[in-house]
């Protein structure tokens, strides 16, 4: 290809090439799918690539897991950083594909702040979704965030977002558990009201969910579905070589 001519001419030639060779981006390519129960929280019904989502409140860990279950099940890889206490069984129950889950151990943070930031940015390069408990300096957060937008990954922050600026903040208040009595029953499911707010949302969005539902996954709350219907599917706990259980007194 000829390269002479003024900058202007070259630009014009290049701009003619753009429609021919420019990448086509469909709206659905920019959004990672979420579980149907969580779709009402997002105007695009999914997680926009390049965005930062904060999960705050008492149930942030559960909500973060439910949030990334959709992309994970759809084939995205998930990296977890700074969350050593992640419950893997719960993650698998909520729908996360464990074969595409990788965690960086917390000891790696002892290397110092700069190498630590390099680790996260390497993860942003290769993973679609990163779950992070953040405590980094503001400069590093900015750098990571711009990298995130370039690469099109989604960052889910558990707890205090620190210096990151969240596109969407999900407020995860404490929910109400069903199934546990006084010395009887067991934890069956929890009703949570989640609210999303942020600069991309003109008004607060709310959704009423069972998280975890009776099977551990996330389910929308359907009016009128009481616990009675569940009692048939509640398995009993088999005691292991149980010597007999009774409540004294």
């Amino acid at each position, binding site marked *: 290809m000829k390269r002479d001519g003024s900058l202007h001419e070259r630009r014009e030639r290049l701009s003619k090439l753009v429609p021919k060779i420019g990448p086509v981006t469909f709206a659905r390519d920019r959004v990672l799918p979420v579980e149907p129960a969580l779709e009402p929280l997002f105007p695009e019904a999914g997680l926009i690539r390049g965005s930062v989502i904060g999960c705050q409140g008492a149930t942030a860990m559960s909500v973060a897991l439910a949030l990334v279950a959709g992309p994970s099940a759809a084939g995205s890889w998930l990296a977890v950083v700074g969350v050593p206490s992640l*419950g893997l069984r719960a993650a698998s129950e909520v729908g996360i594909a464990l074969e*595409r889950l990788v*965690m960086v151990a917390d000891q790696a943070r002892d290397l110092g702040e700069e190498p630590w930031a390099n680790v996260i940015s390497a993860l942003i390069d290769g993973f679609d979704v990163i779950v992070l408990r953040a405590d980094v300096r503001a400069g590093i957060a900015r750098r990571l965030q711009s990298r995130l937008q*370039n690469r099109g990954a989604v960052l889910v922050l558990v707890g205090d977002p620190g210096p990151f600026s969240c596109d969407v903040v999900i407020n995860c208040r404490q929910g109400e558990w069903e199934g546990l009595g006084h010395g009887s029953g067991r934890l069956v499911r929890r009703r949570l009201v989640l609210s999303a707010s942020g600069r991309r949302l003109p008004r607060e969005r709310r959704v009423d969910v069972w998280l975890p539902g009776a099977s551990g996954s996330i389910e929308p709350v359907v009016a009128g579905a009481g616990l009675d219907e569940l009692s048939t599917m509640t398995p009993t706990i088999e005691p292991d070589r*149980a010597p007999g259980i009774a409540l004294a007194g």
Partner: protein
Amino acid sequence: MGRDTTGTADLPRLVVVQCPDWSVVAAGAAPDEPAAVLHANRVVARTPAAAVTGVRHGQRRREAQRTCPELRIIAHDPARDGREFEAAVRSVTEMVPRLEITQPGLLTFPAKGPARYFGGEHAMGLRVAELITASITTAHTWMLGIGIGDGRFTAGVAAADSAVHSARRSDQQPTIVDPGVRATRAFLAPLSVGTLRDVGGLSAELVDLLHRLGLHTLGGLAALPATDVLARFGASGAFAHRIASGGDDRPPGTATAPPDLLVMRTFDDPVRMLDPLVFTAKQLAEELHALLAANGRVCTRLAVLAETEHGERSEHLWYKPHGLSATAIVERVRWQLDGWIRSPAGLTGGVVLLRLTPDEVRSDDGSQLGFWGERTEADEWAVRAVSRVAGLVGEQQVLVPAWRGGRLPGDTYQWVSVDRVELGPGSGSVDERLSAADVPWQGQLPAPSPATVLDEPLPAEVYGATGDVVRVNGRGLLSAVPDSVSIQGKQPTAITAWAGPWPLDERWWDPERHRRLARFQLTTERGTAMLAVVENQQWWITAVY
């Protein structure tokens, strides 16, 4: 011998330069030090000293360490291999401008021009060996194979032969196969059909099948009628037959790319850093891949050109017989530019132009991107990111889940370090790693499971209504109804609901690992649901729902 249906008139005379253990050379290991580069837990390259002790390609880490306990393990780093190879490529470029790189450690170029210039193929082969040895900074003589022959396959086999001999005689004599189909066949005939896999890139299944049918040599395969081979083994068998008999070794469906097909970017502000260039290359590669895919084609040979504001250029041809995916293209651009930017002479200016031009394309028969159970782009990116992170923090710090089984929430799955497993679908071990036993674990609490499983359980006390600590006796009887819980000595919170005890008596046959405990679920007035255990009369909070 079968009918002579294939001529070699159109087969170019090629030189293949091969350094089979390039990865250890690039890592800077000395030949007399036992060292090996491992990828996905298997040896991909080793030093001569390691080879002497019996370390082989494809060996697992444990086996390699058993045969050679003092073996130094070097992490696999394709970026390092590519970067270091750039110097070798540059040294040969002085002699032959248009050479193509298949992978770091493997070069191909036409023999005709340089051979005439240097006074014969043998002299040229020695000269190439000299140039490459001089370009390797470690100043050791490495195993290097130089093969000259008709077509890529023959030259490749000759290079492998030369490499083996160079290791034995510690010189770098080229192996030259005389031109013509007769000489080519005579050279190939006694060789094992395994070369079809090692050099020709054919599947291991086909080679295995040929062995089981008693066809052990290329000559034996070539002696069969071509039509019968096609009927029995299909297209890949026919291809194997063709290359075994010295015929055209380009994969079927290969063609020269249309001349107007290229993607490029110019930069108004010269770019001096590698990362923005690689990022641009990624966009270009995706554009190119999409353009070709729209016509059902894939690029097998690609010219990558970068030019600085002062006219310095770096242009290489990259070759991959089954076609370059977008990821593969980006990787090659990174290798080329990284080595170029870091070259000792350095660049005087920033890069203003980056161009990818397909040189040869072939119809995409799907041998690259599979459907089910094969790696997708996302898998490739992630696996690569994992190896980069492992390089930054050490493999022990990068963890993946593995199923273990057990009755406590933290026991069902455990984290294992990534160096012990193979990632991504198609590696087989994923199923093995994560498949739960068919039968449920007796005594496991049913779903839902706690989202947070504490690494270190928190000591707690559970009080009855009278303020006495609740005890659980050996028969699972409680001394009082739980009323409040205090975690780590903090102010007690009221318990709103609870259930248990679910006793657990694990490994009673093993005095060392025997555990006897009782599990409870509690919710507090703050709405938190927890899993508590009592072991040896001490309460612990082990998980939060």
